[in-house]
């Protein structure tokens, strides 16, 4: 298969999913989008090599995560995201449950959040997470346990029917008003 076609197919099948995973890791949709897109640009620059990788998606995820946590990139990404957000349409409504989850995830440490997402969303095992993050399996287990513990009081087991959706901007306005 020609390399451009292969790349396009890979991009089409994985980009949306990776934005979802990065959003869960960063808590910021625009930042997740920009980091994922930047990772794909870098992948294209090395495509003949990356094409041969067993798990290309993991490569993109790791690079995008590093981009998003890099302090300098973060500042630049925020600026880009700000410009981009001003050009783009408002993202669709997010339900209060998901909003609660995003704010709960933001409250736990970044490495814990990463392993939580890799384990519960991506479905990786402890060993696979250790390989992807470069941390020992024991550390991964500890981060997972601490992350779960920290999230427990913040994330409710949903039993009630979902309430009407509201926009994030409205939610933050309300929170400010209450404060």
């Amino acid at each position, binding site marked *: 298969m*020609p*390399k*451009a076609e292969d*790349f*396009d197919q890979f*991009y*089409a099948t994985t*980009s*949306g*999913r990776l*934005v*979802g*995973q*990065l*959003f*869960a890791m960063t808590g910021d*949709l625009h930042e*997740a*989008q920009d980091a*994922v*897109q930047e990772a*794909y*640009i*870098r*992948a*294209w*620059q090395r495509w003949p090599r990356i094409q041969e990788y067993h798990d290309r998606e993991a490569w993109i995820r790791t690079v995008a995560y590093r981009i998003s946590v890099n302090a300098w990139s973060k500042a630049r990404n925020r600026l880009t995201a700000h410009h981009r957000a001003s050009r*783009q*349409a408002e*993202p*669709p409504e*997010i*339900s209060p*449950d*998901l909003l609660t*989850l*995003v704010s709960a995830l933001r409250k736990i440490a970044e490495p814990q959040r990463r392993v*939580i*997402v890799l384990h*519960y*969303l991506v479905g990786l095992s402890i060993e696979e997470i250790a390989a992807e993050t470069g941390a020992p399996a024991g550390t991964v287990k500890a981060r997972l346990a601490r992350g*779960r513990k920290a*999230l*427990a009081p913040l*994330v*409710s*087991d*949903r039993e009630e029917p979902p309430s009407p959706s509201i926009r994030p901007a409205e939610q933050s306005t309300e929170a400010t008003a209450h404060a």
Partner: protein
Amino acid sequence: MHDSLRTQLSELADYASGSARLDTPAAVRQHGTRRTWRRRGGAAALLGMGAAAVAGAVVGTAHPGATGPDAAGAPPSSASPAQLTAYQTTVLAAAHVTKAQVAALARSGLTTAQISALAVATAELTPAQQKDALLTARIAAGYLARLTPAERVALSATLRPGDMAQQIAALAKARLSAAQLAALAAG
């Protein structure tokens, strides 16, 4: 909590992937290709514009009117055999090989193998000996490159005292094909 967390994270990811506004794959590729081109162009500029001029000349010969990122970023299948690769451009730029030098060497009619042999012969000479262009040509002719008398004359005319050893080594390393040399000679 495990299942609930899994479900909620999955909903969160679905929301994000559904709301994501990503560029098309073609736009992403174009961005990457342009960036690579800029980086390589920047390196060439830092190292000296000679090879960049050579690359430009060859690209211009191969695709009249086509210069810049889009021409360089074209898939290998559509690239002309006369077009320099990024590696060749970098090697030539690092040695400050000018278009005139490559064209002169190309006009001497040397093959890729002969240029490689010449590079080995030149590298074995002392700096003082390297200044003697004819001596270099003779050594190359006699021991390594098997030059014909006509090639030896053309080579000695090409060589300039003291300024070709590094460039010949770079040309040998770049392993320019006959098509690339012919394109340069014509250019």
